């Protein structure tokens, strides 16, 4: 049997390569934008312009990484090379999702390092922004609780978005098995739209939870309970979606050769 660590390592290596490609492209974009701003005469390091440029391009990098990791995850589910490995579908699903999470977090780490460099180079503006945030932070919680909660929330929402994408993909693939072969592509497009609509309609109730977490952090005076409940609720949704995904992998989802 294939070990979890082996399949995780095999799935991770391709994703890490892609993270490097995307991060390098982002870095080139930052250098080009900074050079262009300098040539235009609008660059002010003390005013935090470099930090702003890094922040702007990092957003694009995060977006591209999110999409790329989702693509890696979904392709693995229908790849002969992956599905022929001797391990059960639950382990494969977890290794696949974990590989995407780890690769994405590695990409985030690279961007954080860039931000640190940018912050140090524009220290004056950076420290001023930080102290303003510190003084202005709302609610009754210490700032570390707010930061930790936001990080947990972002992480869980990220995972939930991937499990939701998998759910849409696997439901569509499973249903396609029982539809006529003719005009399969057109049928699949319609099916994707329909399944996406249905799942997002159901998910809109769930997406109230993150909003609740943010407002709880700002306004509540009843302790950390509501924040924790909201985060647990998102985790429960992830578990339910994952169980459905594994069930479909076991029963209906075939490889596309």
């Amino acid at each position, binding site marked *: 049997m294939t070990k979890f660590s082996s399949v995780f390592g095999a799935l991770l290596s391709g994703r890490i390569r892609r993270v490097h490609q995307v991060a390098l492209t982002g870095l080139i974009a930052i250098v080009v934008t900074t050079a262009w701003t300098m040539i235009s005469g609008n660059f002010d390091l003390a005013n935090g312009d470099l930090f702003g440029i890094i922040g702007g391009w990092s957003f694009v990098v995060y977006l591209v990484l999110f999409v790329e990791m989702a693509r890696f995850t979904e392709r693995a589910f229908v790849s002969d090379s*992956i599905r022929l*490995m001797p391990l059960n579908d639950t382990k494969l699903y977890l290794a696949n999702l974990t590989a995407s999470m780890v690769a994405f977090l590695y990409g985030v780490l690279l961007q954080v390092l860039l931000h640190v460099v940018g912050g140090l180079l524009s220290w004056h503006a950076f420290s001023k922004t930080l102290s303003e945030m510190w003084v202005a932070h709302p609610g009754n919680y210490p700032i570390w609780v707010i930061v930790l909660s936001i990080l947990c929330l972002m992480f869980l929402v990220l995972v939930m978005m991937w499990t939701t994408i998998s759910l849409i993909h696997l439901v569509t693939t499973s249903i396609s098995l*029982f539809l006529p072969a003719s005009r399969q592509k057109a049928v699949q497009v319609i099916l994707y739209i329909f399944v996406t609509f249905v799942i997002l309609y159901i998910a809109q109730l769930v997406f109230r939870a993150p909003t609740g977490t943010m407002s709880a952090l700002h306004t509540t005076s009843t302790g950390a309970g509501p924040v924790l409940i909201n985060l647990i609720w998102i985790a429960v949704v992830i578990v339910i979606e994952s169980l459905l995904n594994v069930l479909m992998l076991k029963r209906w989802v075939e*490889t596309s050769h």
Partner: protein
Amino acid sequence: MTTIEIEKLNYRRNLKTILKDVSLSLEGDKIIGLLGENGAGKTTLMRLIAGTAKNASGTIAIKDDTEADTKKALVSYSNPLGGFAPNTPISKVVAFYEKVYPDFDQAKYQQLADFLQLDESLKLAALSKGTREKLVISLTLARQTSVYLLDEPFSGIDSMSRKKIINSILKWKPAEAIMIISDHYVSEIATILDEVVIIKDQTVVAHKDADEIREEFGLGIEAYYEGLYEEGVTHDEI
């Protein structure tokens, strides 16, 4: 112990019956030809045995085991490597196999690669159809399993490569394993087969020993196979 036991296997996809009421028992250390015209269901049967096709009724047991992941450990299927990016070098594909298949024998792979003259520095996109097939065969045979499934290994490749691949099959097939080779060009593989399984009309219509066909019917495997397709044989005649 029977190596592969298939009972009452039925498979439908896209509202179409691909296989119906397939029962088959394979044992020993034989090379078996899985024959049938295009679209007969040969690849589907192989994918069901390998576990990459789903939603079939009936049972497929490998060495008495019906659990999907255990069966995968007992079967080496000629994966066409579609999951790898075109710019992946052969060395990376080999490293992948070494990592995820505990039964992958690196030394055996190297012998096969040397015999088939594979250049490991080449990328998948740069491989001709024949060279790619040689790589697939090398990777498939380098695993130490009980069942080897080669899906149309000679499709669209030149005669020299065909001979090389046939020789590699004969040389490196493990003694205690069953090998199933699917093809619709029977002449390509007839000489190396111990048994033939013929699929027609979505089911297995014949499962015969190759020598028996030659002795009992006075025919070569190719003539027997073509005769079945021309005359029409029902399931009861197996």
